[in-house]
């Protein structure tokens, strides 16, 4: 599904990522953990085409994303739920969803997909005509996920979806992610909230100062002494 090989990139002349190698297999949930400033969002930006890799490769279903123009990346099957949600605040909920189906592949199915999103998130269907910016943080996060799903991705990439949300809402949203995964969606979950993320994911990577410093199954990572100290506060 997703193959990241020796990815190196940064901003201007400041290098942020060093030889990052990671993968997500079909139908898997993988989490990427790391402290603030480790380069998690930089990696997300590189995967979504906002940032050009300096070297290395990103393959999605054997298509090289580093050679794909940014606005065509969503068509190739990866959809991003950006950090801080970044929904379109002055558009209605429905318009936010419809604009998620912008790419050519998903466009013809937008009507059915909107209905499907409203089934997944009934809260959103109660607010169809409301301006997205006037909703609560949790609802905005649901909307951001819904908007990403409208692109009919095979891989969903989430950047810190739990940020700033009440634990009960986080649980709610992670439950939905689990469901989506059971229906066949692959997920790469970038998180600081290590416990919740490892409970959901099957495998994980640990990113520190731009390098992958650890990887393993969720069980292994949860048992790792150093990791427990650094991220779990145990």
């Amino acid at each position, binding site marked *: 599904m997703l193959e990241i090989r020796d990815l190196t990139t940064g901003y201007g002349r400041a290098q942020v990522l060093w030889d990052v190698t990671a993968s997500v297999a079909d139908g898997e949930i993988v989490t990427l953990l790391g402290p603030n400033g480790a380069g998690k969002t930089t990696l997300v930006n590189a995967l979504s085409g906002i940032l050009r890799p300096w070297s290395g490769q990103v393959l999605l279903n054997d298509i090289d994303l580093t050679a794909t123009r940014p606005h065509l990346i969503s068509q190739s099957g990866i959809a991003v739920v950006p950090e801080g949600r*970044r929904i*379109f605040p002055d558009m209605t909920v429905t318009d936010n969803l419809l604009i998620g189906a912008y790419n050519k592949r998903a466009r013809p199915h937008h009507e059915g997909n909107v209905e499907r999103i409203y089934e997944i998130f009934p809260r959103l269907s109660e607010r169809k005509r409301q301006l997205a910016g006037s909703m609560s943080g949790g609802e905005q996060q649901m909307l951001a996920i819904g908007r990403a799903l409208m692109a009919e991705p095979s891989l969903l990439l989430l950047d810190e979806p739990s940020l700033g949300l009440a634990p009960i809402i986080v649980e709610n949203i992670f439950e939905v992610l689990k469901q989506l995964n059971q229906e066949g969606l692959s997920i790469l979950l970038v998180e600081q909230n290590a416990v919740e993320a490892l409970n959901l994911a099957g495998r994980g990577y640990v990113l520190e100062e731009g390098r992958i410093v650890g990887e393993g199954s969720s069980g292994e990572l949860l048992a790792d002494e150093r990791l427990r100290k650094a991220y779990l506060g145990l």
Partner: protein
Amino acid sequence: MKSRRRALTGFAVAFLILLAVPHLAERMDWPGFYLTFMFTAFFWITQSSSWNMLTGYSGYFSFGQGAWFGVGVYTTAVLAGKQGWSFLAALPLAGFTALIVGLLLGLVVFRLRSLGGEIFALTTLAVAFVLAAIARIFAAIDGGRGAFMTSVPLPEFLGEFRPAMYRMTLVIMMLTLVTAYLIYESRLGWGLFAIRDDEQVARGLGVPTFRYKMAALGANAFFGGLMGGVWALQIGFVTVEDVFSIRVPLFVILMSVLGGTRHWMGPVVGSLIIFTIVDRFNSAGFENFNQVFIGSLLILLVLAVREGIYLRIRERWVATASLFGLIIAASVIFNSSSMVWKFLWALLGILLMALIPDRAWQKLALRRRPTPSESREDRETVDA
């Protein structure tokens, strides 16, 4: 689709009614300045609506309206005024020359990511300065001597000068408004509004941002230039200082922001209100107060109606239209001043209507429909 057909029918009906006005004016012996007033309003509606296609839709703030306008003015001034082309042959080139200049600018600024925000705004301002310098230097364009449009013959079927100006500006305004509407309702419009809200996310969702921004800039420049091409006739004696002054860009910004930039109708409403107020101020002999007055008015209105007048009155259009009609009727019965004054009073009625805050309006209308912020409060109590 159905709503689009209905809207286009509406445009056609409005066009036919407005097209009949010069005949009516002749038959009913209206004062000549009614037509001048109307086609000057068409001019401003076109300029601000075309500006809004770029800045309102995509969020890229432009001071470049003077540049597109100026390129259009000088295209017909040079071709028809100096080279002796027939006016209607020169006119389309006014639009296309502005389009080419606009696209060249776009190629540079939209390719360089560092030129976002304020730098984009300043770059568009600089384009007008550069064009003014070019016009001043080259004698074939202006050379500091100005250009005369007063002896340019107009085709006979357009009628005398005023009706001819009226008809040409009307056609260009309708083309501009239909384009603004079609973009607004299309995938292009959606993409542009997404760019306005968050360009990075828009690109991530598959919006071809570069192409869309070029399209918006192109449409803006084309219609601004086309209307400029006609306007050279009204100016008569074209000079660099006058054409490339800051007047056009400042007024289109003022008009669009006041009317509301998030809807294609916003600039239309804003242009009508501001142009009519300024026109009546001038005719009442207060020319020097204009800038003080307009400046204060803008501050006040922008603070009071942040989303623009149009979006405010759309929610209460029945009441607004009734008030407009009532004021017109009352001033026709009780007041013998010119129609333009009556129009101004009625527009001030609309303004007043827009100034009523949403909350107060709901109390006035004796209706309780929760606003988005209120329904949010409701939900939070349910959550708790």
